[in-house]
């Protein structure tokens, strides 16, 4: 796990850097959401039910991770941001370890990207830029804030480890109370956010901060020592492995291939969305209007989330119906073939619209 970590440098206690890293963490978790949602929405309604449940369960937990990161940031006096061109992720999106997130329809190549994101040790073959699906569809990569802050390729696990170590060091140097000076009223709790596998923990001190960060790593890509987290839920990597092998894990299975009943993955029952769609791809005014509708809803959702992270946790309540609306509007795009004539369909572009 430490193979690509830079040599140990004694950094001075720098709360500002911790805040920047945590802001980068919020953006990192946010960036996985459109990545997974495109795959989820591309499943044709009425098909791939179990596949959809599996992907959605991961999306919901990535949102939880974003909330947890924001709670830690708020606890040390920071102000989480998720709106505006400076913070909203763009695609293809490059993670600190070099992995590239493309917005793809649900497909075997996409499943490979899921596995790689959730397990950096996973020996996946990165998508060749010349692959027909993405050829010409990767004009520019958007570098994750985490990548630019770290300065050298770093795994996500190492990234969170730096934050945890940094918090411990700062608490020792400055005193815990001085470090965790944020207003407790800014914490998002399980009153307002529901995520299948876990609960948003209010963060008020070092123990709860490291607990929150451990939960992120535990549920997600980090702790591959064990397949199940402490709540007994399968780690994300293993959930996606079920999609790769089209079998579910039995409680008796080990970390290899699952041997349980079929999931019922049907790569054929998928809208063939164009890779990394952009609003500029839609010359047709109707298509463009449908795309703008999605992006307005996405932007409104992000505004609600930002409000929730900055003193109004109840702003997460309208986020629930907004997610339903986002899905319905995205489906309008996904059902429509592009005028290009090669059979590929439109899809949600997840771009920020200031006038939403």
């Amino acid at each position: 796990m430490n193979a690509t970590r830079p040599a140990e440098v004694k950094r001075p206690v720098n709360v500002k850097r911790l805040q920047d890293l945590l802001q980068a963490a919020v953006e990192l978790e946010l960036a996985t959401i459109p990545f997974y949602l495109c795959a989820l929405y591309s499943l044709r309604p009425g098909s791939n039910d179990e596949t959809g449940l599996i992907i959605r369960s991961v999306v919901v937990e990535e949102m939880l991770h974003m909330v947890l990161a924001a709670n830690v940031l708020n606890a040390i006096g920071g102000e989480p941001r998720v709106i505006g061109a400076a913070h909203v992720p763009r695609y293809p999106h490059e993670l600190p370890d070099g992995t590239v997130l493309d917005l793809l329809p649900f497909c075997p190549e996409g499943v490979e990207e899921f596995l790689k994101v959730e397990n950096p040790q996973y020996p996946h073959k990165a998508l060749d830029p010349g692959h027909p699906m993405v050829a010409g569809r990767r004009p520019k990569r958007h570098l994750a804030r985490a990548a630019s802050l770290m300065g050298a390729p770093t795994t996500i696990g190492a990234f969170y480890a730096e934050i945890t170590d940094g918090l411990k060091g700062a608490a020792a140097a400055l005193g815990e109370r001085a470090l965790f000076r944020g207003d407790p009223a800014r914490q998002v709790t399980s009153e307002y956010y529901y995520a299948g596998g876990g609960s948003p923990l209010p963060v008020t001190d070092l123990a709860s901060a490291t607990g929150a960060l451990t939960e992120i790593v535990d549920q997600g890509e980090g702790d591959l020592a064990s397949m199940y987290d402490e709540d007994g839920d399968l780690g994300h990597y293993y959930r996606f492995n079920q999609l790769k092998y089209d079998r579910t894990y039995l409680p008796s299975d080990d970390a290899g291939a699952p041997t349980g009943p079929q999931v019922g993955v049907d790569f054929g029952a998928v809208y063939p969305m164009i890779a990394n769609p952009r609003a500029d791809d839609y010359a047709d005014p109707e298509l463009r209007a449908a795309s703008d509708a999605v992006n307005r809803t996405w932007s409104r959702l992000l505004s609600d989330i930002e409000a929730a992270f900055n003193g109004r946790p109840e702003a997460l309540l309208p986020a629930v119906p907004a997610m339903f609306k986002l899905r319905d509007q995205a489906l309008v795009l996904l059902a429509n073939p592009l005028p290009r004539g090669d059979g590929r369909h439109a899809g949600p572009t997840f771009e920020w619209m200031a006038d939403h």
Partner: protein
Amino acid sequence: MIFPPGATALTDPDAVSETLYDAVIIGGGIAGAIIANQLSQAGQRVLILEAGKGEDMNVASYEDYLTNFYTAVSKDNQAPYPVNPNAAMPRSTDVRRITPGQPDTSPYLVQNGPYATDFTYTRVLGGTTMHWEAKTPRMLPEDFDTASRYGHGLDWPFGYDDLEPYYQEAEREIGVSADVEDQTYLGLGYPPGYVFPMRGLPLSYLDQMVARGVDGTEVDLDGQPVTLKVRPWPQGRNGIPNPDYDGGHGYTPVGAVSTHQVEEGGRCQGNNNCVPLCPVQAKYHAGKTLAKAVGNGVHLLTQAVAYRVHTNPVSGRVTHVEFRAYRDSSSAEYATGTARGRIFVLAANAIENARLMLASDLQSASGLVGRNLMDHAYLLNWALLPEVAGTGRGTNSTGGITDLRGGPFRGRQAGFAIDIHNDGWGWATGSPVSDLLHIVDAQNKFGPDLRRSLIDQVSRQLLLAFMIDVPPNPGNRVTVDPAYRDQLGNMRPVISYSISDYTMEGAAFARRLAKRLFARLGAEDCTAYSPADYGYVSYGGQDYVIRGGNHLAGTHVMGTTPANSVVDAALRSWDHQNLYLVGGGAMPTIGTSNITLTIAALCFKSAGHMIERLRAEQAPVVLSGSNQ
């Protein structure tokens, strides 16, 4: 919630016939599941016999039920379930008006009348919780002694305070969302500090609109003024866990059941599809308890219909239950099996429990098996509100009016609870399909005009369902007749039922109140009761249509002596020492609350006695004069 894969194939009729269980339970619904779970946790070997079909419970098979429902042209509460002549389920589509003297013998339930009941119950794994609405109000303290208090009904052999701790267990098992502050009225009390597992679900927009007209309305009954208020219902579906529950341990909602991990159903989404099936399994169904029971080692044999309960003629003890195991629901072929246990529990619902006893020639000394059949009498009233009210969102019913559930007036007329239906006129008129047909065929609308009319019509619909108390009446009964059998050779239930004046007096009052409430809301009363309807009742020169609620009860009442009841306060048969009859059939009255929560509470109470008894029978015997 994981349902252990392979659990429904762990045993077969032959293996079962070779085994002596500690407890044999007939019925895989909520009563059977709770008792099986409790007994297995106490180390007992348990078998559940389920008449209906049921493979391992998983999301795929649940989705099949949903697809059946979505694609059914006629959507009633049994529409998800394939017809199974070997474990037939009564359906509301079966019901016809009964001509006096000519019983309706064609559907599964033979109906003598005079009132044609539309009773339904579901015979698959999970039982009738596979179509219930999941409102979970408690009975009022006064519901337990209406005979002493009001001169109507029967007294229970214990009171609300005795059952209260078991209500808490039932609320935990089902997972109830409610706030104590909203549920403290008419004597309902809770131990200090008690909170429900999950916070109450909010009142819908429609409820709030109705509340603006209803709240504060004064009703005068026998000189006693009662003020009405719209109140949220306690619900057996998932909401926000209350962190103060269980001494601060909180509560983890149980979502969908499957043979592998799925994340679904952790919160109600307001899909408005509660009856029959919640699309995401946020609503409780007994599969959530069965999964735990099976995980504890309970044996489950499906497609096994209990045929006869055999007893020792001298001791009266049940020796075994003979059952018929079928492979194919369309074929009458079966294999005979025997289930033997130290104790036997009938948990097949009030009608099937009585049917089985009578078919086994086991009428009790009291003569009350099958008698006192009760179901709530529903009087539906529907109107069109003056403005769009958001009908069609939320659970089927989030709010209602409970102020007339209790009071001295019950000496003269039945009390009732009022449901505000979030799903519009559906139950009364077949909306929204009926609206669509009318707008297209009769009004010739199409396009945007059609869409606007649908919204205008459906979104203003208000249905108030008055759930009226029905006291026990020995003449309302289940009997059997060897002339009427099902495909497997089991005698079918024969129902004789009528509605009393006491209940109809409550219905008449309900009708007057509905008109008054509609007037206060500025709503156009569209209620109409047709003499051609199977549920038609004439009372006081007025027309009424009474519907049933499928809250089946009374057919093996509990009581204080073998002469006045079939079972004792632990739900054990007076006549057969190792036989228990659980479920609604044991309830002497049904008051004005949906009965499932009370059934569950009674199961926790009864299970405690069963465990004590089983342990006592298995304890070593101390001989007098021994060296101990």
